[in-house]
């Protein structure tokens, strides 16, 4: 998921040579080329934020798999995207534990603040709001994911702070980032 990148107007960007090289390395690492498909898709996702048609071409060439196979995999997994995404995709867990702890209230609050319904993107392409299944933070819910960042123990106030920071272009520290000794 793109973090600080603006939404690409380009619907068909070409993955860079660096990504192509990354895919070559993955193919060498995995026991057969096709099993490197998911990590190769991730390599493209990490650079472009989605897998463009040019990305699909690259995958079919490098991994010796059919276009149908690539499409099948792209559409099966919810984290893989085939279209440009909003700059900040806010994914709120709406599963059972978070629901018990107030996820619905949080979603309603986000809908109001962003002026969009669940599943929509703001007209400026900056924010998208999605409901997702359990994020593995059930005891720390309600929670929300933004790319690699997981925010836990959320309240309406904390969500407001988060939106403020994002509007300034700052992605706050995730709750999963602990103080670690080097």
């Amino acid at each position, binding site marked *: 998921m793109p973090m600080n990148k603006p939404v690409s107007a380009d619907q068909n960007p070409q993955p860079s040579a660096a990504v192509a090289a990354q895919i070559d390395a993955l193919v060498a690492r995995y026991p057969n080329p096709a099993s490197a498909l998911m*990590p190769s898709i991730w390599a493209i996702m990490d650079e472009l934020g989605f897998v463009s048609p040019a990305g699909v071409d690259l995958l079919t060439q490098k991994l010796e798999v059919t276009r149908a*196979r690539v499409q099948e995999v792209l559409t099966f997994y919810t984290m893989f995207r085939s279209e440009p995404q909003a700059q900040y995709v806010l994914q709120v867990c709406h599963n059972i534990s978070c629901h018990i702890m107030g996820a619905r209230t949080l979603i309603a609050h986000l809908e109001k603040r962003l002026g969009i319904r669940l599943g929509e993107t703001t007209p400026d392409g900056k924010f998208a709001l999605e409901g997702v299944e359990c994020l593995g933070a059930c005891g720390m819910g309600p929670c929300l994911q933004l790319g690699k960042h997981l925010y836990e123990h959320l309240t309406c106030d904390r969500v407001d702070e988060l939106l403020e920071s994002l509007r300034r272009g700052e992605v706050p520290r995730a709750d999963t980032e602990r103080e670690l000794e080097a």
Partner: protein
Amino acid sequence: MKEYNILTSRFGRSDGHKLAVYEQEGGYQALRRVLGQGDPAAVRETVKEAGLRGRGGAGFPTGVKWGFVPQGAEEVYFFVNADESEPGTFKDRLLLDYDPHQTLEGTIISCFAVQAKLAFIYIRGEFGWLIDRVQAAVDEAYAAGYLGKNILGSGFDLEVIVHKGAGAYICGEETGLINSVEGRKGQPSIKPPFPAVAGFLGKPTIVNNVESVASVPWIINNGPQAYRAVGTEKSPGTKLFSVSGPVKKPGVYEIPLGLPFREFFNDWLGGMVEGEQLKAVIVGGSSVPVLPAAEVMNVNLDYESLQQAGTMLGSGGMIVIPESCDMVELIQVLMHFYYDESCGQCTPCREGTGWLHRIVKKLRRGEGTAEDLDLLAYVCNGMAGLTICPLADAAVMPMRSFLGKFRPEFEALIRETAVAGPQTRWPRGEQE
């Protein structure tokens, strides 16, 4: 309340992820011992004797599963299942976050036991930060000679690949997991053949949960008898429970199997937060039958006791439900989940989860009738035990138990709405 730290000795620390710290505290000694002895069968035997049961949900004895790999197989693969997607479960995440080397050492020993030369650690894609942490540990282990060619001069080779998932609950099912790494949709395959005989690329493959694998170094270091000294006869050892809901102290706990729920709830979790009363508990992740407060207070937390009580230990994802929660609303949340996550191969699962979800939604819209409750039961009967993988059962178990144990709530909703007429019941943003 005694503390147990077979698995959690480095939890909460800011340095527990480092190889140097792990080594200082006796890490990788079990691996040295095992490779020094050079006897894979002995490792399998030790784990079998310890009675370690798979912590991913099914509780199948780990050592016994390892024994299913055909003797002398040339190519064997090992998968560490860190897909952790069962709602209510967040324990493997902490194991890998605070102590990645423990799981890694367990992985290397397990691979030696089944003579696998390539292992995948399959981590759900949502755990982006965790993938970095585990990869860093893997890199450290390579640099220190615990991975790669000729590990510690033993002649044993092992490569480990950290594989990132991409958001699909069904990839936690072992054959779905294998298909996913093969670069396909993560749809489960019909068993038999079991993966231990024909799995990844058609070769013998063992899939084990993170917690199962993480328990192995301790068992090697301390011996099967010490492991059996904790827990019960048929459920030896400790188990991680991840607790969510409005209790005073939610979080991940390592408890001896067999601990009475009452004691766990009152002494460890501190009971409910002020103002909430206990209504029900789902003890083992969203897929197992719910127990009303009066029943759960009398169970012990081990595989047999929970089975006798009509539920399952599952993944240990304990969801505590307060009196203030509407059970029909909660089952709608769950039925949405299973409907969303059904991989769609089996008609009873694909159609059944859809029906269950739609009927519950209809009830919640205020359009339900008494016949709908019979229809829910009827649809469940058409799903249970009739599918390729247990996801259909995983939807049926909560549905049946919610309906069975909390039927008056369903009936009251139907009665009330028959008078009041249809209404929207979410605050906003109808869940489709």
